[in-house]
Structure formats: structure tokens, C-alpha cells
């Protein structure tokens, strides 16, 4: 008999084994009695806070971007003045 064949026969018998473990329900419930599962995962909270922060940064950035003078205007302004003379 081949080793793998013997192992497969052993596995077939081993599958009938009943584990010698008692009920664990009481232990689990005692462990989690005072801690209901969170409805919103921590990662979701982090994502919401990150999105809010990003929106604020975008708004400030856009404000300064619109308020800043065009750099090309700064470049051509002296030339335009020169042409006038």
C-alpha cells in the first residue's frame, strides 16, 4: 500500500472523530457582554475625517490660487510699460 493511500484511509476515519471541547458560548458572551459591535468601523471614521480635512485644504488652496496674481502678467507688465515709452 502506498503511503498516501494509507493516509487517505486514516483521514476518512479521522473525519468521524468528535472534538472533545465543551460549549464556549457562555465564555464568549461574558467576554463581549459590555461591548456591542461598532456600527461604523474605525476605518470609516478615519475616512470621513480625512475627507473633511481634504475639503478644507482644497477650499483654502483654491482661495489663494484665485487671489494670487498671474505670474505671466508679472513677466509681461514691464515690457508693456516699455512699449508705451
Amino acid at each position, binding site marked *: 500500500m502506498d*503511503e*498516501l493511500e*494509507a493516509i487517505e484511509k486514516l483521514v476518512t*476515519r479521522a473525519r468521524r472523530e468528535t472534538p472533545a*471541547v465543551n*460549549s464556549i*458560548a457562555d465564555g*464568549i458572551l461574558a*467576554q463581549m457582554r459590555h461591548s456591542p459591535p461598532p*456600527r461604523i468601523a474605525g476605518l470609516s471614521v478615519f475616512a470621513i475625517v480625512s475627507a473633511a480635512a481634504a475639503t478644507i485644504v482644497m477650499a483654502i488652496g483654491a482661495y489663494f490660487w484665485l487671489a494670487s496674481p498671474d505670474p505671466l502678467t508679472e513677466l509681461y507688465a514691464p515690457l508693456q510699460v516699455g512699449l508705451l515709452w
Partner: protein
Amino acid sequence: MQIGMQSATDIEYYTGVEDTDWRDIQASLDGDGESYERLVRRYESQIAAMMWRFSRRPDQCAELMQDVFVQAYFSLPGFRGDGPFVHWLKRIGTRVGYRFWKQQGRRNKPLPLGDIDPAAEEPEAMDPSTASKIVEALLSELKPPDRLVLTLQYFEGCSMKEIADRMGWNEAMVKMRAYRSRNKLRAIARRRGLVEKLQWTN
């Protein structure tokens, strides 16, 4: 009702989640401990049978089961109901068991082959517990990934795809690992003289 205002029957039809499970899951999310207790009692024997393959020590096995159900409880909001609840539990159980084996690491010495009475034992007559001890003794010599693939294949009847899904591994890699692991197991059994010890005629 969650999930697009479908009825519980629709959910069962589309996702395979038992109606009773779904109700208990929703109630558990609302903080009803008794509902989760029902879920635990409904599935603890199946999870016990699975975690027993990761440790045959009753205290360790109970601890692993506890880890599975506690982890499942805190992950309940992420349960999407794509399949039966017990499949989801078993996926968590596989990862918990695999982590346990990895933590055992080098401390885990190969188990002795056990006392086999060759005269009395034929495959069909062998005590399941003895058979289980022998298989575990052989598998304990493999590295955790190899051991996991064969354990899931032999005891859980998992296909290569199911193993890959449970662990987030590549299916081709699992196939290759299963093939190599079987060869390694054969070599271990040969080295430890399994066939000679069993003395099975058929």
C-alpha cells in the same frame, strides 16, 4: 431593513444567508446579546470540528473557537451576506488557526506517531481518534502553509479555489503547494515507517 430594502426571503435567495441567521445578525448589530448567543450555539459544533484540526488540546481548541467568534462579532458590520454565515465563520477560523500555527512556529516539535496496535487495526475498524492522532503527527512536520492546504483539503473537503478564497492566496499557487505538500507528506510517512506500522492488508 438593510441591503436595499429587500425582504429576508429575497436576501436568502440571492445571497445564501439563512433567514434566521440574517435576523440574528441584524439583532446582534443592534446590541442584542441573545441573538449572537443563538448564532454561537448554532455553529459552535461546526467551528469546534474545524478548530480541532488546528489544535487537539481541548483548552487551546476552546481558545481558538473563542477567538473566531469574538473576531466574527466585531467584524459583523462588515459581513456582506455574500454566502452562508458559517462559510464566513470558517474563513475567519482558517485565518485564526493559521496564525496560531505560525505563532507556534519553531516551538512546535513533530508529534510522536502514537501507539498503533497493528494486529487489531484495519482501516475500517480503527478508532477515529487514533487515526486523527496519526494524521496530525504526520502533518505536524510540515510548514504551516503546507499543513494548512492539506488540512483544509483532507478534513474540510475544500477545493483549491476554496482554499485560495479563504486565505486570499493565488489558486495556481495553492495547486502547486498541494502537490508539493502531498509529496512531502509521503516522504515523511515513508521515513516514519507508517505503512509498516499499520500493517494493513487492504
